[in-house]
């Protein structure tokens, strides 16, 4: 069971990076690349920074390489949160 959800991610992106006018963040975005959603590497660093603050975890800058899509970002964050590997698709 995921502690950090796709909706949590949507909220953070909305709050800290804004949403491109042509993008529906509430749509089926889980496997869409962040770059296609209008988020560059700086936006992902900002996401990581926000997650660190809100959830009191440490996410190294290099971790953004492991988050090309929202689904993979949520998965990575849960791995850190729960302190162990989370099976994908759970």
């Amino acid at each position, binding site marked *: 069971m995921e502690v950090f959800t796709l909706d949590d991610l949507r909220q953070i992106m909305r709050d800290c990076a*804004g949403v491109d*006018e042509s993008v529906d963040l509430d749509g089926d975005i889980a496997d869409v690349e962040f770059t296609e959603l209008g988020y560059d590497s*700086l936006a992902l660093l*900002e996401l990581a*920074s926000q997650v660190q*603050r809100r959830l009191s975890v440490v996410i190294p800058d290099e971790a953004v390489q492991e988050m090309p899509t929202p689904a993979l970002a949520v998965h990575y964050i849960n791995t850190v949160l729960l302190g162990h590997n989370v099976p994908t698709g759970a």
Partner: protein
Amino acid sequence: MNVVISGLGIVAPTGIGIEEHWQSVLGGKSGLGRITRFDPSGYPVTVGGEVSGFEAKGRLPNRIIPQTDRWTHLALAATEAAFADAGVDPADYPEYETAVVTSSSSGGTEFGQGEMQRLYESGPSWVGAYQSIAWFYAATTGQISIRHGMRGPCGVICGEQAGGLDAIGQTRRLLRGSSKLVVTGGTDGSLCPYGVVAQLANGFLSTVDDPATAYLPFDTEAAGYVPGEGGAILVAERADLARSRGAGDGYGTVAGYAAGFDQSARGRPPVLASTIRRALADARLAPSDVDVVFADAAADPELDRIEAAAITEVFGPHGVPVTAPKTLTGRLYGGGAALDVATALLAMGEGVIPHTCGPTELAPGCDIDLVLGEPRVRELRTALVVARGYGGFTAAVVLTR
């Protein structure tokens, strides 16, 4: 090879847009008031020139807003307006033949203040990633360049209040080189606690609480200047290209430019008069050709005397009409000289010298024909804009129409 200004985008305490700004200038409608961007109670400075009614949300793309400071928001909006005014789309030009050179002074102080508060109150991991690109002086140039695909020789000039003229000088250089279309001018936005405290350190800010008497350049009661936010973005192009696309000579030609660095406080010879002369020489004009001078108007008694003396030295006592519509906006640092150029171009187009609101009695030693009371109708073919930035930056631009 001539360079013309073909588009203006104005976001200032006198108004958003050319028409609102010009009507305020003609009517002497001041944009100064008690600062509202933060509560100035307890600060020595309580009066500022704010751009009222400017909301980035709705005007700018959602993604750009969180990663930029208000100073850049103002500039991005002004840039859009300037392109529309010029009737150009940078996408119509080869991307490396368009460029952006803005003037910046305070940088993203409001944005930076927020991040620094988080740093000191909560720790380093609370500083956002966007601080890296929102604060620094070139942020506005960068965002304009990215948004409009202008990939030529971009840059930023930091000369405080004088930088806007130096940016125009650099723009002219670029257009005489490989650039065909250049966005220049600038804005500033430093009416936040951090910004105001930094400005206070220069010792030149007015601590008068009444907006009507806080900023009185060349007056016996001159007691400093009022800070403001906003500015103007200008679209510049080569005269031949402007003509060939049907834009004629736009608002006017950048006929002359010169820069100097004044260290007279340290005993070096003052440079303002010689800078003015070099700008005129660059324009191949004589002082008698100049119809109006838009003054720097620092409102410090000593700086006023120095400026008045330089103008008198070049033009003779009461030798040319002088004005400073910036008393309606305050000094806008990175945006100030650009707004003066925009106002000068509008004045030339209308054949009206806007008056200087505020001053009523010229200080001794200020033997200038300061236009007071009401605008003066006069055919204007040549305008001189003068600007000085804290530390010694000195620049002059000659505009012709």
